[in-house]
């Protein structure tokens, strides 16, 4: 029975692992931290799996557990050195020198998103994943109206980061 459970879990996680990778990419810098968080999310998913009844899709359930782990449970290890500010600064300089190509614009956007706080990041992540406001609200535990308002504010925030 437990072997069956294991098999079913691993196959489903393997098929949906992109979700976890994307969360790791948003919440960590560097391969070590990425792997650490991936592992912690896997452990949390596995621990919660026996209670997963299939009321929602496996992937929907993964979003919730994955984000919760990244936002609340995961302890950032010391070796994760935050090099983000430096990257952003150096990139801004080079962006002024050249034309704003799509590639550069995207890089700036990613950097801007990475500067957001944990909660804002979660909203952006769910938005990028095409989740509707109802799902966003339920995942974070806020109301639907407020998640809509908040998302608009984040868009403004990103705009100011991009065009100071």
């Amino acid at each position, binding site marked *: 029975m437990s072997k069956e459970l*294991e098999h079913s*879990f*691993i*196959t489903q*996680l*393997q098929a949906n*692992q*992109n979700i976890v*990778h*994307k969360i790791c990419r948003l919440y960590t810098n560097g391969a070590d931290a990425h792997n*650490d968080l*991936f*592992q*912690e999310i*896997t*452990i*949390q998913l*596995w*621990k*919660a799996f026996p*209670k*997963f009844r299939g009321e929602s899709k496996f992937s929907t*359930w993964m979003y*919730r*557990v994955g*984000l*919760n*782990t990244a*936002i*609340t*449970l*995961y*302890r950032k*290890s010391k070796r994760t050195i935050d090099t983000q500010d430096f990257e952003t600064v150096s990139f801004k300089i080079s962006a002024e020198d050249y034309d704003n190509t*799509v590639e550069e*614009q*995207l890089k700036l*956007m990613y950097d801007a998103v990475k500067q957001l*706080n*944990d*909660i*804002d990041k*979660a909203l*952006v992540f769910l*938005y*990028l994943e*095409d989740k509707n406001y109802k799902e966003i609200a*339920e*995942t*974070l*535990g*806020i*109301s639907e109206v407020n*998640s809509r*308002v*908040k998302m608009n504010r984040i*868009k403004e925030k*990103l*705009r100011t980061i*991009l065009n100071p």
Partner: protein
Amino acid sequence: MDELELLKKDWKMREQKQPQLSYDDIYTMLFKKSTSIVKWIFIISIAELIFWTGLSFFTPKSSYEILERFGVSQILWMTNIINYLVFIGFIYLFYKNYTAIKVTDSTKQLINSIIKTRKTVRYFVFYNVAVFALILIFINILYYLKSDVLMEIIGEKYGKIKDAAAFLNNFFIIQIVLGVFMLGLLLLFYRLVYGILLRRLKNNLKELEKIEM
């Protein structure tokens, strides 16, 4: 916002380029140990519960004998019983709150239940510190009121003391200074442990609450 739509398109394109873990990679992960903050809170909380419960079990017998001489052993016995009842209550609450932590809850609910669990233990610690302080004050008042009994006991143990008044003066000053110092140390320790573990959680909860305002 055009940029965000652009990002969305790219976000989806990048999905294909992501590293893929094999079945065996994931399998080995299942047996790794979690480093989650809840696990640490659990370990530290259990350590605190054991520490304080243990401490009251290991009060040396001789100090009970001394207190008997002061005629307060019955009061202390009563407080001990009440103390253990309170302990059991706290341990039950801790267990109940801990089992209520579910990673499948909404983020806000999850953070709230983690903080609630931690709060129970925090109150437990404060309760103990308060009891510790009260007993210290109570015993010193007792010593003061019955200083003749105190001097008698000290005399039996360490020989007769010539200047009783000066000795008592120093005795009480040392008692107070040591007591306050220990209290300060305890509170500082808990502030640190509590602060380090919960800072990020609290910030995120604040963010979520800000959204709802």
